[in-house]
């Protein structure tokens, strides 16, 4: 199930990226297939970890942070990426792929 979700998130991420450059809708992606009040977390393009819950705005669920912002190191980001539980900014993922290619 996790793998399926991961593929879905990746596809949505890629689709958004292809159309809009690095428009950062990670706060929405963090609430994919979640319900109101479900816990969520994401790392935005500024390397800040946002932890909170999914709340509804204009028919979308957005991850609303209720914990203080945490700065994520590269090592921590790699760990979060491998665990697959936290949505990660498409822009950061693109940077990661670019780095891997080189």
């Amino acid at each position, binding site marked *: 199930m996790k793998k399926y979700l991961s593929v879905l998130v990746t596809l949505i991420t890629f689709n958004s990226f292809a*159309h*809009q*450059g*690095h*428009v*950062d*809708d*990670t*706060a929405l992606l963090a609430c994919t297939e979640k319900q*109101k*009040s479900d816990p969520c977390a994401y790392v*935005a*393009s*500024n390397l*800040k970890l*946002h932890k*909170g*819950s999914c*709340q*509804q*705005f*204009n*028919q979308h669920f*957005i991850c*609303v*942070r*209720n*914990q*203080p*912002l945490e700065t994520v190191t590269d090592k921590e980001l790699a760990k979060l990426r491998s665990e697959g539980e936290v949505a990660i*900014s498409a*822009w950061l993922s693109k940077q990661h792929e670019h780095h891997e290619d080189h």
Partner: protein
Amino acid sequence: MQKTPLLGLLLVLTTAFLYGCNGSQTDETASDEDTSGDGSSVTVQAVFDPDVFHDGALLDTPTIENCTLSGGTTTTCYRVTIAGEPATTEIGPFCPPSIDSDASEGGIWFDGSGEVYDIDGEFILNLENLYGGDWQLYDPETGKVNITDTQASCEGAARPDVAEEYQNHCVECSLSYFGGAVAETFLIPVEPVPMNNPDSINNNNLGLTVNGVVLAPPAPVDAILSANTIAAFDDCGGHINPFEGYHYHASTGCTESVFQSDNHASLLGYALDGYGIYGMLNMAGEEDYDLDECRGHSDDTRGYHYHSASAGENMFIGCFKGEQGSIVAE
């Protein structure tokens, strides 16, 4: 014995100086502490206080009337009419005139990514890298930024389906196009009525500021960016559209102006449910760890209240903890 009047005078002068310098207020009515006969103190929960609004923020003195809240509770509400323009700051600037402009000539932009960008010439030049190859908001021959600088262009661009000729524009509007500020009347419960299951904000305006401006839900940045437009905010996180007039989408600190005496973040306004909304950080620059899903919590002085998110998150609060009053259709 003679020290007390001198100290009192010094305190009054200091308070007057601070007030005069920054246009801010101290919320003396944030809590009413009654001392009971046995010497113990009883803290009374602070709720909507019509006295904390800045001069010029309200068009009329708030009155109290019967009302029915969103959850069906019949109670009393303050009828509050805001001026619809900030009483404490100037509106704008929004879009920089050219690719050589510095940050003082433009406002800010946030897209929910956590970043807050200064809209200067460099930002305009960098949009292609930021959002994609088909972005060009300026004339490459003159360096002038494409700005919606007429009422027609403002109305063509500041809407969900941006007219094609206004794509690749920095969007700004003027209140003068619409006959001035848009006053709005709110019914705010005198005593908040908490709910076990908070209500979603959806796409509704969520409250008002102490300087007389409406608090809007997150700006629809995906729709704005998909038309290759930047609906520029001024440095206070507000902008103008033909429907709402001037409104805020996030707090950058301009409205956090009712100081608290206990190192707590300053009050910036009230949500439709009557609970206060305070800045994100306390006076020591720290954020609270115990916020609920609506970004609220309780303390002994203020009772339940919210803390705004950062401007980069493109929102104020997550949901309504209490039954909401309403915005009165004029």
